[in-house]
């Protein structure tokens, strides 16, 4: 699936409650038996309305997921940023080949000679080298891997 950077159809139709919901749900979801009821109460909403809106936001892909975000290295896995230089004429074919790998968690087209950037997530550290080799074999193009040497900051929270 390719979404244009210049606009998704869904973005323009968020109302104030949707925006409050997105901001409130970006972290610290409570570990209590009825967490949705608790979050809904802080926003002055009913639990059913919150669940209905959350479903709709996921359905429209305003939210790409809702749940725990795993730091896979801490669970014995590995996580690597990788890039390829893909000839424009072959871009669609290569994107489809790369995206077909379940280890590819996200993939972006970027304006640069290295024009395809994706993240590989594997259950074991050696899975990265295996997947990289498999992608090179499938596409016929070299993969540049950029493993994290040090993390200075990660806090992907954006105000809606």
């Amino acid at each position, binding site marked *: 699936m390719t979404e244009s950077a210049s606009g998704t159809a869904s*973005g323009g139709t968020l109302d104030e409650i949707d925006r409050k919901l*997105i901001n409130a749900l970006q972290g610290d979801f409570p570990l209590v038996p009825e967490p949705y009821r608790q979050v809904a109460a802080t926003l002055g909403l009913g639990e059913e309305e919150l669940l209905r809106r959350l479903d709709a936001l996921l359905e429209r892909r305003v939210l790409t997921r809702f749940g725990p975000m795993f*730091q896979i290295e801490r669970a014995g896995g590995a*996580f690597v940023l990788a890039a390829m230089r893909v000839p424009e004429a072959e871009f669609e074919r290569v994107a489809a080949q790369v995206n077909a790998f379940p280890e590819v968690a996200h*993939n972006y087209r970027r304006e640069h000679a290295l024009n395809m950037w994706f993240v590989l997530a594997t259950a074991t550290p050696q899975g990265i080298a295996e997947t990289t080799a498999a992608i090179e074999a499938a596409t016929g193009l070299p993969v540049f891997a950029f493993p994290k040497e040090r993390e200075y*900051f990660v806090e992907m929270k954006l105000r809606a």
Partner: protein
Amino acid sequence: MREANPDIELDATDRRLIVATQGGLPRVSRPYDALAGELNITAGEVLQRLQRMLDRGVIRRIGAVPNHYAIGYTANGMSVWDVDDKHIDRLGIEVGALEFVTHCYRRPRRLPDWPYNLFAMVHSQNREEVAARVAEIAVLLGDACRAHDILYSTAILKKTGLRIAG
């Protein structure tokens, strides 16, 4: 800043819980009860295991991931920098602390194709704003930086989040 900690051991039930939730949390009134039923453990144990994984950084947080385009952040610039190795850790921490930087990492150079060793992601409403923020980073890095570039994204080709095999 969190570094990998090899001491953390996850057992088979933790792994089943990861596999059961990596696609998302059930959207029902009692989601942890639903997971407990699926895993054949008690809801209390689900909560305890999730809390322990949060405490140990296996789970960064529990919440929603917005499609940044859909909520108005239409410019996504990956700024990349060739920073003197002697100063990169001090400067990387400073760049990561800027309020508009959402991710900041040190990564290896790939010479001759790729001279950059510092990556800082900047999301904004438009490219002019991204460029202005990148200019602020350039001032902060000063002479320790030899070259930089901004790689704007023009399409999301895939975005599913992490999956590990069950």
